[in-house]
């Protein structure tokens, strides 16, 4: 307000005739004001504050001297004298005061002097304000404020900056060593470096920051070289983290914010990058040891620290991968050892050991996934490391069983009756979820699917499935992970069974309404869709006449439902409940259709030789041996074998064992399943050949001409979701396709294939 008012006054005065003020005269007056200002700044006793009148007079004098007609316009001279006033003050008062002080005292003096200087600039520039408005503006000269500050920079700052920098750095060094320092002082001093740049950071950066960074690097380099020898990895990391925190605080307290990244980078470089390997590989406390001892807190710290340096996490994730791999391999070895300790003859049957193995793998996965999430903040590098580690040992297999088979069996054990009744629904769901997760690491997903289908078929057909919801739930999970194609057959199987139940109800209704058709035997038929189910041998077993009638009745019924479907009977999957009239009592026997057919032969004959059984049943040697063994050499000896040995031979003769009895009224006579492993593997192998052929043809059809390596790569990529095709297998398929004239080699370049449409 006072400015505007004063200005108005001056304009008014200028309108009247005015006495010319000579330069010397005017400047004398100004000089008085300046001296008063200096005295105030130097806190001379007795000096009074400027009154608004004083100020008005000074301003008006300048105004008048600048608005006089030439040659009495003293603007130029006053502009110079304005600068000289500062120079004089600095040379007389400021520099001598600074020069006699040192270190922190010098800094304090400088702090004061800078404050004073700014006050002086403020006041003087007010007195000379009129210059700013017209003279300076018109000639584009540096403004009053700038002139004032430049004086300080050129005379004081230039002389003192190096000493100031040294003093500041020495204080910082003291603080790093744990002493208390005057942070406010440092803040003010460093502000000078910023302000003196008049908008540019050059002074701060070149005169201070550069040295700070050098000094910091040297400081931490010294520290690190000692710590790395003396401290354990966790201790070192604690110190490093603390140092980084303190440096960050330092920036907050007195450094310019632009220094933060540069400073921290220096510290990280000296403390972490330089010693990364040495630190991570410390023999008794390095990364491996921390992983081994589950030091999650230290590992989290390690992640935090090393995530800040360029490629710093690479070695950590590598070690993580190595650790998880070796843990997994140890489990594989453990399971191998357990398996080889088992009795020779039981080796083929999947046992508890393998079940335990899968459980342990799941636990291992839980544990380290948790590490990835908690310690390693879900970083992709660590997810990748975990994946790669699991891919190594999840594809190893144990004791002749591939991991695909192990997983399928594991699922079977959970899903079948008596497998996991003790578990809650939630626990089962959770376990299934985890198995499916593991499946992601298995490269032979097609092999898993095939084994899974075999086991699912057994569960569904022999009513061994514990819970329909769980069956459907795991299929949903598999579908999510592996795609619809993967589960379509399995889903078809489950649906088939539901349809089969409806079908059975209809069949029973049919029998009730057509009582003449009723064969007098309870018959349950499960109608399945060929493509969904694993392939089964359908041999022409000579059914007993009673059963033939059943088949006929069902065929008739089915004809009424549909005309266009062909029924293929798979007797090998059938079961029968038959009554054995033994001397002591009648016992109900639950047997397979094969076994039943064999037993029923003895209704007609007292005594049958091996050859007779075989011709009457029309079965292969393998099957006949298996089922006769189950009836005469196993737990329940329904047939008496001559001679009485433990194995079946083609010269044996059998008779019905009238004397047989058991304390139960109902017994189940198991027929050990044939080992299907080989067939599953063969089936999968065949499917793979088709899959590779199809993939190659698909690729070549769209590309027409393609180099060998590229074709192999694209093929692997296309098929990778289901299995990892062997390069050799791909090559064989390519050669086969060449032979079949789908492809040819380029005449000039045998590495190039052409598609033959």
């Amino acid at each position, binding site marked *: 307000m006072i400015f505007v008012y004063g200005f108005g006054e001056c304009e008014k005065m200028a309108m009247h005739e005015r006495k010319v003020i000579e330069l010397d005269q005017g400047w004398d007056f100004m000089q008085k004001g300046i001296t008063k200002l200096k005295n105030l700044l130097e806190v001379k006793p007795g000096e009074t504050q400027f009154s608004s009148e004083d100020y008005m007079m000074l301003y008006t004098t300048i105004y008048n001297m600048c608005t006089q007609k030439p040659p009495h316009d003293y603007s130029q001279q006053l502009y110079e004298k304005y600068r000289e006033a500062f120079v004089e003050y600095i040379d007389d008062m400021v520099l001598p005061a600074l020069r006699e002080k040192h270190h922190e005292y010098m800094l304090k003096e400088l702090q004061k002097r800078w404050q004073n200087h700014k006050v002086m600039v403020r006041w003087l520039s007010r007195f000379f304000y009129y210059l700013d408005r017209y003279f300076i503006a018109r000639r584009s000269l540096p403004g009053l404020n700038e002139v004032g500050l430049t004086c300080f920079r050129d005379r004081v700052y230039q002389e003192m900056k190096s000493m100031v920098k040294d003093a500041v750095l020495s204080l910082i060094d003291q603080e790093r060593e744990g002493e208390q320092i005057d942070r406010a002082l440092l803040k003010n001093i460093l502000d000078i470096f910023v302000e003196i740049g008049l908008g540019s950071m050059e002074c701060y950066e070149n005169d201070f920051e550069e040295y700070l960074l050098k000094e910091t690097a040297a400081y931490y380099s010294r520290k690190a070289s000692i710590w790395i020898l003396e401290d354990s990895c966790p201790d070192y990391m604690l110190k490093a983290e603390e140092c980084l925190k303190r440096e960050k605080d330092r920036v907050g307290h007195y450094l310019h914010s632009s220094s933060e990244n540069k400073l921290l980078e220096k510290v990280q470089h000296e403390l972490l990058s330089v010693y990364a390997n040495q630190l991570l590989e410390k023999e008794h406390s390095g990364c491996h040891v921390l992983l081994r001892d589950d030091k999650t807190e230290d590992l989290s710290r390690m992640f935090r620290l090393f995530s800040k340096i360029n490629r710093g996490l690479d070695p950590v994730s590598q070690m993580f991968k190595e650790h998880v791999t070796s843990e997994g391999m140890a489990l594989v070895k453990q399971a191998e050892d357990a398996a080889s300790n088992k009795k020779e003859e039981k080796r083929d049957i999947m046992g508890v050991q393998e079940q335990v193995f899968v459980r342990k793998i799941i636990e291992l996965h839980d544990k380290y996934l948790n590490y990835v999430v908690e310690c390693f903040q879900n970083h992709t590098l660590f997810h990748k490391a975990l994946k790669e580690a699991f891919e190594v040992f999840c594809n190893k297999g144990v004791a002749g069983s591939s991991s695909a088979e192990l997983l399928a069996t594991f699922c079977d054990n959970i899903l079948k009756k008596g497998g996991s009744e003790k578990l809650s629904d939630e626990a089962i769901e959770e376990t299934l979820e985890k198995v499916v997760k593991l499946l992601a690491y298995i490269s032979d997903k097609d092999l898993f699917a095939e084994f899974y289908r075999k086991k699912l078929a057994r569960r569904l057909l022999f009513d061994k499935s514990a819970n329909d919801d769980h069956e459907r739930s795991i299929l949903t999970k598999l579908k999510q992970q592996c795609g619809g194609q993967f589960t379509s057959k399995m889903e078809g199987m489950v649906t088939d069974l539901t349809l089969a139940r409806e079908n059975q109800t209809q069949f029973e209704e049919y029998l009730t309404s057509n009582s003449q058709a009723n064969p007098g035997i309870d018959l349950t038929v499960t109608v399945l869709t060929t493509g969904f189910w694993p392939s089964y041998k359908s041999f022409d077993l000579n059914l007993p006449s009673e059963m033939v009638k059943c088949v006929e009745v069902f065929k008739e019924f089915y004809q009424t439902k549909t005309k266009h479907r062909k029924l293929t009977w798979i007797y090998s999957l059938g079961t029968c409940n038959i009554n054995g009239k033994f001397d002591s009592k009648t016992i109900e026997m639950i047997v397979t259709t094969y076994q039943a057919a064999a037993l029923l032969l003895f209704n007609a004959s007292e005594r049958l030789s091996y050859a007779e059984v075989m011709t009457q049943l029309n079965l292969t040697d393998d099957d006949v041996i298996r089922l006769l063994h189950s009836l005469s050499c196993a737990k329940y000896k329904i047939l008496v074998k001559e001679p009485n040995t433990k194995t079946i031979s083609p010269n044996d003769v059998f008779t019905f064992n009238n004397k047989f009895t058991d304390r139960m009224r109902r017994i189940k006579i198991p027929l050990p399943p044939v080992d299907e492993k080989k067939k599953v593997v063969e089936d999968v192998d065949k499917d793979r050949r088709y899959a590779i052929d199809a993939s190659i043809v698909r690729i070549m059809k769209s590309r027409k001409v393609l180099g*060998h*390596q590229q074709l192999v790569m694209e093929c692997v990529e296309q098929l990778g979701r289901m299995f990892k095709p062997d390069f050799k297998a791909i*090559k064989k398929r390519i*050669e086969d396709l*060449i*032979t079949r004239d789908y492809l040819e*080699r380029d005449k000039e370049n*045998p590495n*190039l294939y052409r598609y033959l449409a």
Partner: protein
Amino acid sequence: MMSKLGRGQKDKVQQFMAITGASEKVALQALKGSEWHLEGAFDIFYSQPQIRAFTDTRHLEELFKRYKDPDVDMVFVEGISLLCNDLQVDPQDIVMLVLSWHMKAATMCEFSRQEFIGGLQSLGVDSIPKLREKLPSLRNELRDEHKFHEIYNFAFSWAREKGQKSLALDTALGMWRLLFSEKHWPLVEHWCQFLQVRHNKAISRDTWSQLLEFVKNIDPQLSNYDEEGAWPYLIDEFVEYLTENGIVPTRK
């Protein structure tokens, strides 16, 4: 004969005969075949040796009659034995393969009339002595890289059983031994042994033709063999076999 020709045509015949030293008949044949362009006629003359030498068709017919099966218009094993006898060469001699190649024979141990007569015509011979004289030059053709390549690939179809896509292993081994004794491939015996031990199945045309590429391009120490390349898997396995058995130094 010349009288039917125009003046320009006569000139060309004269010119052609003067330059090539060929008979009038040959000159006419070549010029007619190129629609009376001299340049084209020279091409024909020099690229088709059969027209250079005059062969007497009657002689060829008689020769064919001597060797052919009494019932069928074909030369069979007996005929070929007789031919070899007349030529005083072993039926197993590789020169017989070269001869068959010239005859464009479809199948081993068989010549049709067309193959027999056409082949001899193209060689410019119409008698046994002439053919026998020709044998050393036929043998020499194997030294020519390009011709060897053709003869090698010809041998596959020629030696293959009728109606089969692949070549029976035993036949293949015999052919390889024959061909590579000429070409001096030091690994041929290892290759044959490897196939008998590890493969024991028929050989596809691709494997057959790629083996020659392998022999031509890969040195016997296998230092320039690339396992990532498109070599047939049998060749890859052969390389493994060689390394496993210490026949070649282990690769890095």
